[in-house]
Structures are given as structure tokens and as C-alpha cells.
């Protein structure tokens, strides 16, 4: 099983600030996915990164896949309260998930 470590575990910031969360592994991934989950709901797919060094943007969210395809980051610019949630990364082998980063954006 490929282990995915996410950091930090919790992140609380003020509206308008930027934040970055990380997903790391000692294994190489053919692809990696990011999901966002709100309390009491199922996770929703945000993006899949496939190519080493790839950068994908989704409005204020920027996703980067490491050159060696062992790590990924999610950067949110000018965070809003609607960005609050649990951010999960997942790998394709047995669809393993990291433990997640709980992001709270205070108004």
C-alpha cells in the first residue's frame, strides 16, 4: 500500500490569506488526486495531476505535482470561508487516501 502523508493536519486562517497544504509519499505515483469534503458529505474530486512538474489551476486553487511524482501541493490564494473543509489527496493504487488537512477560513 502506498502511504500518503498530508500536512499540516489542521490549518486555520483569516479570510483573504493564502495557504498551502502538502501531500507526500516515499513512493512514485502515476497520478494523484485532490478531493474536498464538507462535514456530513462525501468528498468531491477537485483535480487529478498526472505529469511530473505539472501545475493545474482551478480558480483560486493551484495544484502542483512534484517532478519526481512523489509529492503534491495545493495552494489557495485569498482564501474565503467557502474554502473551509477537509482536503484529501489520494493515489491510484487501491485508491489510498491521506489523512487529510482540515482547513478553516475565518470571516
Amino acid at each position: 500500500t502506498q502511504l500518503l502523508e498530508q500536512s499540516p493536519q489542521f490549518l486555520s486562517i483569516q479570510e483573504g490569506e493564502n495557504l498551502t497544504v502538502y501531500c507526500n509519499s516515499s513512493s512514485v505515483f502515476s497520478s494523484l488526486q485532490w478531493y474536498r469534503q464538507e462535514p456530513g458529505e462525501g468528498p468531491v474530486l477537485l483535480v487529478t495531476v498526472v505529469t511530473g512538474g505539472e501545475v493545474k489551476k482551478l480558480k483560486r486553487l493551484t495544484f502542483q505535482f512534484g517532478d519526481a511524482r512523489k509529492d503534491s501541493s495545493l495552494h489557495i490564494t485569498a482564501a474565503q470561508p467557502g474554502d473551509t473543509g477537509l482536503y484529501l489527496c489520494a493515489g491510484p493504487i487501491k485508491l489510498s487516501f491521506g489523512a487529510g488537512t482540515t482547513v478553516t477560513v475565518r470571516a
Partner: protein
Amino acid sequence: SQTIHQWPATLVQPVGSPLSLECTVEGTSNPNLYWYRQAAGRGLQLLFYSVGIGQISSEVPQNLSASRPQDRQFILSSKKLLLSDSGFYLCAGPQGGINTGELFFGEGSRLTVL
């Protein structure tokens, strides 16, 4: 469009009682289906996955079982619940109806064992 329905949404059961959680998928055929369990605010633990009718792979040995009696139906069961079975159970299928590894989740079933 693709939908995944889970039933019931919330369940409170005593220790030692049986369990049946149902997952029904619409908008796709022959999907790979998955059962995950999530502890409060944490990551997802894969419990079972199925690539077709009657085909079940178990990832974590425990007192839970799964069945796939129909192409679009995936059931999670237990004969005798333990306190440690409490959690948020999520059924997932392929995003966009295509088995690429990207997942689409149901609304979840929250189980509390007392």
C-alpha cells in the same frame, strides 16, 4: 448524470446487532464500486471494492462483509456490530462513469454503535 444513493443516512445501533448499508448507483454500467470508512474528520479507509456482480475484494479483515447482488447495488453488512464499527461509511463509484481511478462519492451513512 451519475448519482450514488446511500441508505440509511443515519443509523444508531446497539453492540451485537446486525447491519445493512445499501448503495445504489445510477447513470453508469459495470462500475467498480468501493466502500470506505472514515473516522471523525480524518482520511478514508478502504474496506471493500468490487469490479462486478458477486466479485468482492476485502482490504481489511474485520467483522464486516460486502455483497454485490446487482451491477448497480453494493451492500455492506455485519452480523454483530462492535463499538469500533462506528463511523462515516462512504460508497464510491467511478467519476463520470468511467473506471479511471477518479471517484464519485455518495452522501454517506453515519453509523453510531452504542
